[in-house]
C-alpha cells in the first residue's frame, strides 16, 4: 500500500528538460531508502506550468516542486520522502494567494482562475495505466451511454451542452453528429480524431493525448455509438512520439478490458480504434486532406460539399472532431449538458485550453472558462509580459489567425468576439508579443510557414501566398513602396476568397490583421526605411558616438567581420557596407558609445 505519491511530469516539455532522468533518480533513491513498497513514482501528463519544468508534485499535501534535476530529486527523497520535511527552496516560487501558507498549488495565480475539464486528469494520473483513468470515473460515461441512453439522447445532450469544435472553426459538435446520424446500422460510418496539431507554438492536443489518452478513446466510442459507427481512426502526427506511444498503450489496455472491441458493456455495440500517423504536413489538419491521407493517398484537400458527414472517409459518412473536443465529451455525459453550458458566454460554452507562449513569464498550458479576458490570461495566469516589457499584441490561431492589439486587452475571449476583431479562436495557440516584436516580421514569419506548407493543389494559395511573401520580404528589406500595401491587401482578399481549403482561405489573416492594427509599422518600414521594433536587420544601422568612444578597441576585436576600424585611444568607426548587424559591438562596449538606429 502506497502512502506517498511522487508525480513527475512526463509531458514533452518536461521530458525535454530531462524529467526521464529525474524519474529514474526518484525510483532508485526510493529503492535505496527501502520505501519502494510505500512510495509510488508516477510519470504523468502535462501539469501546465511548462516554464518551470520539470515539475514534481508530492502527494499527499500537493507540494509543488519546480525545475527539478536528478540532484534535487535525491534531496527531495532524503528530506521530504524519508523525513517528511518539505524542501522549501525547491518549491514553486510563485506567491500563493492563501495567507495561511497553504502548500496547495490550487491557490496560486497560475491555477486558481483555471477550470480544468479537458485537462482534468493531466498531471494527476498515470496515462499508461487504464486503472488510474477508471479510478477517476473513466469509462463510466461510455457505460452510461451504452446501458441507459439511446443514440439520439446522446446527440441531444451534446447539442444542449453547446459544445463547439475546439480545433478552430467552432462548429457545434452536436450538429455535426446529428448530420452523420442517419441510416444507423445500414451503412458503414467512421469516427475520426484530428490530432494533427500543426500551428507553430501550439501543444494543447499533444498534452491531452500524453496526459489522458483514454478520455479521447472513450469519447470516440461514445461518438461511434451516437452516429452508428464501429470504427475509429486517430490521425496523429509522427512528431509526437510520446503521444503515439501512450495512445498505443491506451488502445491495447482498453481492448484488454473490453472497453474497445466487441459487445462493449454487453450492449451489442462494437467499436475499434486504429492509429494513423501523419508525416507532419500542416494541410493534413484540414478535414478533407486528413481523410484523404488516412485513405493512403497524398494529403490534399478537395472541395466541400459533399461534407464528411455525408461522404467522408472511404466515401462513407464520417465525423471528425479535434482531440480537445473529444476530451470534453465524457465529462459532459457524466455531469450533464446544463453543467457544461453554465460556463462560458452566450454563444461559447465551457472552457478552452490555450498553449501560452512567447514573451510571457509562465509559459505553459492553461484551461480557462470562455469569456475570460486576455488581460486575465496574460497578467494573472501568465504572470505578465516577460522581462518587464510592455505588451504589444497577442497572436491566436497561428498561421490562420490574427493579432489582438492592446486596445482589445479586456475583450472576453470567445469565438464571436475574436472573429469580430479580425482574429480567430484557432486551436488554442496564444503567443504573447512585447514591444520588441516587429509586426511586419511576424506577418512574414507566418506567411513563410504557409508558403512552405501549401500543398500546391490550387493556384490561389500556391502562387498567391508566395507573391504576398515576396512583397513582405521587400518591405522588411527597406525596398517597399506605398502601393505595395494596396497590392498586399488586394492579394490577401483574393487568396481568402479563392483558395480551395481552410489553409489558403485563412493564410492571409496574419497579414490582414497586422495591416489593420499596426499599419503605422508597415508605413515606417516603407517611408522612413526604419523598423520601429529594431528587428528587421536590413533596416538597422549601428553607429559609434565619437564623443563617447574611448578607443579601447574592444568592439573592433569582437567584430566577426572586421567592419570596425580606428586607432587605439581614438574614436572608432563602423563600415556599414561590411557590417552584418549582429550587435556584438554594442553588447561589448563598456561606455555605451554604440547605438542602434
Amino acid at each position, binding site marked *: *500500500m502506497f*502512502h506517498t505519491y511522487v508525480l513527475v511530469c512526463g509531458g514533452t516539455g518536461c521530458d525535454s528538460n530531462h524529467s526521464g532522468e529525474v524519474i529514474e533518480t526518484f525510483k532508485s533513491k526510493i529503492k535505496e531508502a527501502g520505501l519502494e513498497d510505500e512510495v509510488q513514482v508516477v510519470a504523468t501528463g502535462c501539469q501546465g506550468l511548462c516554464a518551470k519544468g520539470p515539475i514534481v508534485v508530492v502527494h*499527499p499535501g500537493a507540494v509543488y516542486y519546480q525545475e527539478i534535476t536528478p540532484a534535487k530529486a535525491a534531496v527531495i527523497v532524503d528530506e521530504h520522502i524519508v*523525513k*517528511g520535511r518539505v524542501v522549501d527552496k525547491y518549491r514553486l516560487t510563485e506567491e500563493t494567494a492563501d495567507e495561511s501558507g497553504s502548500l496547495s498549488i490550487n491557490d496560486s495565480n497560475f491555477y486558481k482562475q483555471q477550470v480544468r475539464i479537458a485537462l482534468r486528469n493531466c498531471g494527476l494520473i498515470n496515462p499508461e495505466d487504464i486503472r488510474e483513468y477508471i479510478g477517476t470515473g473513466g469509462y463510466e460515461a461510455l457505460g452510461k451511454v451504452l446501458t441507459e441512453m439511446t443514440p439520439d439522447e446522446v446527440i441531444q445532450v451534446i447539442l444542449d451542452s453547446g459544445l463547439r469544435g475546439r480545433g478552430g472553426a467552432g462548429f457545434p459538435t452536436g450538429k455535426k453528429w446529428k448530420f452523420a446520424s442517419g441510416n444507423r446500422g445500414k451503412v458503414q460510418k467512421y469516427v475520426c480524431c484530428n490530432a494533427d496539431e500543426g500551428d507553430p507554438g501550439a501543444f494543447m492536443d499533444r498534452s491531452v493525448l500524453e496526459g489522458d489518452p483514454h478520455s479521447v478513446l472513450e469519447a470516440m466510442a461514445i461518438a461511434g455509438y451516437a452516429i452508428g459507427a464501429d470504427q475509429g481512426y486517430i490521425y496523429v502526427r509522427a512528431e509526437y512520439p510520446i503521444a503515439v506511444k501512450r495512445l498505443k498503450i491506451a488502445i491495447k489496455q482498453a481492448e484488454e478490458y473490453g472497453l474497445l472491441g466487441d459487445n462493449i458493456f454487453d450492449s451489442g455495440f462494437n467499436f475499434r480504434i486504429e492509429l494513423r500517423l501523419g508525416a507532419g504536413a500542416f494541410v493534413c489538419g484540414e478535414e478533407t486532406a486528413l481523410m484523404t491521407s488516412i485513405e493512403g493517398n497524398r494529403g490534399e484537400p478537395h472541395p466541400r460539399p459533399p461534407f464528411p458527414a455525408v461522404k467522408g472517409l472511404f466515401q462513407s459518412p464520417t465525423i471528425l472532431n479535434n482531440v480537445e473536443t473529444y476530451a470534453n465529451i465524457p465529462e459532459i455525459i457524466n455531469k450533464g449538458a446544463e453543467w457544461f453550458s453554465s460556463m462560458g458566454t452566450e454563444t461559447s460554452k465551457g472552457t478552452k485550453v490555450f498553449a501560452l507562449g512567447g514573451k510571457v513569464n509562465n509559459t505553459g498550458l492553461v484551461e480557462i472558462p470562455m469569456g475570460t479576458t486576455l488581460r486575465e490570461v496574460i497578467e494573472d495566469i501568465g504572470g505578465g509580459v516577460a522581462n518587464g516589457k510592455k505588451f504589444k499584441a497577442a497572436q491566436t490561431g497561428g498561421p490562420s489567425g490574427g493579432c489582438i492589439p492592446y486596445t482589445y486587452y479586456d475583450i472576453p475571449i470567445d469565438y464571436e468576439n475574436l472573429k469580430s476583431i479580425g482574429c480567430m479562436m484557432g486551436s488554442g495557440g496564444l503567443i504573447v508579443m512585447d514591444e520588441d516584436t516587429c509586426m511586419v516580421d511576424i506577418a512574414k514569419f507566418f506567411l513563410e510557414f504557409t508558403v512552405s506548407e501549401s500543398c500546391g493543389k490550387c493556384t490561389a494559395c500556391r502562387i498567391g501566398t508566395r507573391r504576398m511573401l515576396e512583397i513582405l520580404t521587400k518591405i522588411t528589406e527597406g525596398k517597399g513602396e506605398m502601393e505595395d500595401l494596396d497590392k498586399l491587401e488586394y492579394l490577401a482578399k483574393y487568396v481568402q476568397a479563392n483558395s480551395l481549403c481552410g489553409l489558403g482561405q485563412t493564410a492571409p489573416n496574419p497579414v490582414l490583421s497586422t495591416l489593420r492594427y499596426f499599419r503605422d509599422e508597415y508605413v515606417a518600414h516603407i517611408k522612413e526605411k526604419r523598423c520601429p521594433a529594431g528587428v528587421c536587420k536590413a533596416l538597422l544601422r549601428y553607429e559609434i558616438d565619437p564623443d563617447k568612444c574611448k578607443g579601447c578597441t574592444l568592439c573592433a576585436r569582437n567584430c566577426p567581420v572586421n567592419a570596425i576600424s580606428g586607432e587605439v585611444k581614438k574614436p572608432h568607426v563602423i563600415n556599414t557596407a561590411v557590417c552584418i548587424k549582429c550587435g556584438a559591438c554594442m553588447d561589448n562596449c563598456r561606455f555605451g558609445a554604440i547605438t542602434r538606429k
Partner: protein
Amino acid sequence: MKSLAELKAIRESMQGQIGLRSEDDDTTKIVVGMATCGIAAGARPVLNELVKDVNEKGLKNVVVEQTGCIGMCEYEPIVEVFEPGKDKVTYVRMTADKADEVIEKHIIGGKPIADFTLSKVDI
C-alpha cells in the same frame, strides 16, 4: 467489460490511489511525524497502518500525511488529526494497534481518544 458494476469495482479499488491526489477543504488530515526521532521511535509502522486502514475501510476525504519533527521527540511517534472546523488532536507514543483504534473510534466514530493524548501521558 460487461457491466457498469464491474467498472465501478475497479474504480473503488483505485480510490485509495487517486483519492489521495485530490484534496479539498473538507478533508481530514492525519499527520504523522516522520523525522529521525519519529522514525527511530517506530513511526513508519504507524504510518503504514494508518494508510492501510484508510484504504481498506474506504474512508473518503481522509488523507494521511507526513511531517517533520515537532519538538517533542520524547513522545514520538506523534500523530496529529486535523478535522475541518475542529481543534486538532495530538496523539503521542503511538503504535500500530493504537493507530487502528484512532481510525475506528476517532476518524470513523467521531470521538477523540483522550487516553492517547499528551494530557494523559505521564510526564
